[in-house]
């Protein structure tokens, strides 16, 4: 087997982005497994796809649109029903410190 497709640092980075807490042993294990998967998928590169349009969707349909009409929402009570933590009107999450959203 040649150069690993994914090294340990990349696994750490991906796990961080996905908010997964992995042990050092798992990181090593996943680096091996993910590399094997990528190597397998790389076989596709043997095909000449230069004349193939990228596929945006696997279904041969488009323009599934709806009219701008109001539908019943769940309402506050039902919306919060599955929340691990909540108050009267809001989901509660551990205090958010400095790290703004990505919009």
């Amino acid at each position: 087997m040649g150069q690993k497709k994914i090294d340990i640092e990349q696994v750490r980075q991906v796990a961080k982005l996905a908010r997964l807490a992995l042990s050092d042993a798992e990181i090593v294990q996943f680096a091996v497994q993910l590399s094997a998967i990528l190597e397998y998928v790389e076989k596709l590169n043997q095909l000449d796809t230069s004349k193939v349009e990228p596929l945006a969707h696997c279904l041969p349909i488009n323009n599934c649109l709806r009219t701008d009409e109001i539908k019943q929402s769940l309402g506050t009570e039902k919306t919060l029903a599955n929340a691990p933590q909540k108050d009267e009107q809001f989901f509660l999450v551990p205090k958010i410190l400095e790290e703004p959203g990505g919009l």
Partner: protein
Amino acid sequence: MTNIDYKVIVGLEIHVQLATRTKMFCGCELIFAAEPNSRVCPVCLGLPGALPVMNKQAVEFAILTALSLNCKVAEFTKWDRKSYYYPDLPKNYQISQYDLPIGSTGFIEIPLPDGKVKKIRIRRVHLEEDAGKNIHSEGNFSQVDLNRAGTPLLEIVTEPDINSAEEVRLLAIELQRIVRFLGVSEADMQKGHMRFEPNVNLHIKKDNNEYKTPITEIKNLNSFKALEKSVAFEAQRQLAEFLDSGKVMQSGNKKTLGWDDIREVTVLQREKEEAHDYRYFPDPDLVPVVVNKKWLVEIKTKLCELPLTMQNRFVSEYGLSDYDAGVLTADKAAAEFFDNTVKAGGDAKRICNLVTQTGLKIANEKNCKVSQLGISPQKLAELAKMVEAGQISATASVTIFEKMTQSESAPQQIAESLNLLQKSDEGELEKIVDEVIAANPQAVEDAKSGDKKSKKANGFLMGQVMQKTKGTANPQVVAKILSSKLNKGI
């Protein structure tokens, strides 16, 4: 001594909330300040099995805006997932458009204070959904309200063609006018309908070398004032930093800043994640959008005359000042009402004054559009013509305008009933002038003297005539008669 010259370079990202009734991918109602988490459904929550479906109106609004910004509209476009974890984003990805935006390579024209127009290129226009709101209250928790999650947003990205803080503000204002004219957004700043993210750096010429300072992006500005001030601040800060450290732009040294509204300074936020960290990929839940010619033609019928075009037409066709034309075209309803009134007859400048000075004031008090005051353009044109013909004074026209909002009567009738018609009949007025002259020999003497006293005396005689006619005499006619009598030397 070193020789330093620099140019401010700004590219702007703008998020505009579209004025649809429902969200981008579900039928939850968009309503400002609703009970928290009351407008939420399984699609907003990203529950397993929930399936998003595109809002046709949002897609059409996006295309309409792209067209008005002179963009190329994509014939084929799709949806991508932008992955990141944050509590206001329950699916852990935002549905957006990555490599195939709905509009690309356009431009917007902005009017500059010197009367010139500047063209700013538009890089792309794409649709995406908004996130929810995090409320950072006291205690160990943050509160999350998902009512806003899924609201359709139009992201508009300009090329870095903007060269001052003032230009950034003018562009934002022009864009607000455009989306309001098109009816695609209320663009209400108070409700967060427009949010701005300028990317700022400087091109500095020093001792015949050119340097580029590191780019900074200022996040989430939601007022024109904050936008302008933050860009002005950032330009000065970057200049000082360059002079101090000589730091220049390098791959990876772009910074993300926030704006502190109270201290009026930019503050450092996190380092910008590289684009691939968002792991964009096509959303398998949503099928592509194909914009065929027929649909595009249908959408094009909804285009209207754009504000700047209309403003220029009011100047060239009706002879208004650029300022007046700008005031009128700040609001589409006022602009069209004015335009229709001029077309119904009457002097444009006179109508402009009636609309901007009286109409907008009353509309503002009543919290409605000037076109909703119950006065037709035809009736307002009649009122303007009465002022022109000297039948009523400009002051009386304001009173009549106010009455017209409460009554169906024609301005002529209102003027009669309020006894506001001016006497312009020369024969009748001449008699009164003669009486006044006969009764005030001293004032006549003074008026004829031609020295300092004459102006005052003239005013006194005018006043006497107005008093005798209970203010209904046409002052221009009276002045004419009076001056001819005094000059003749009686």
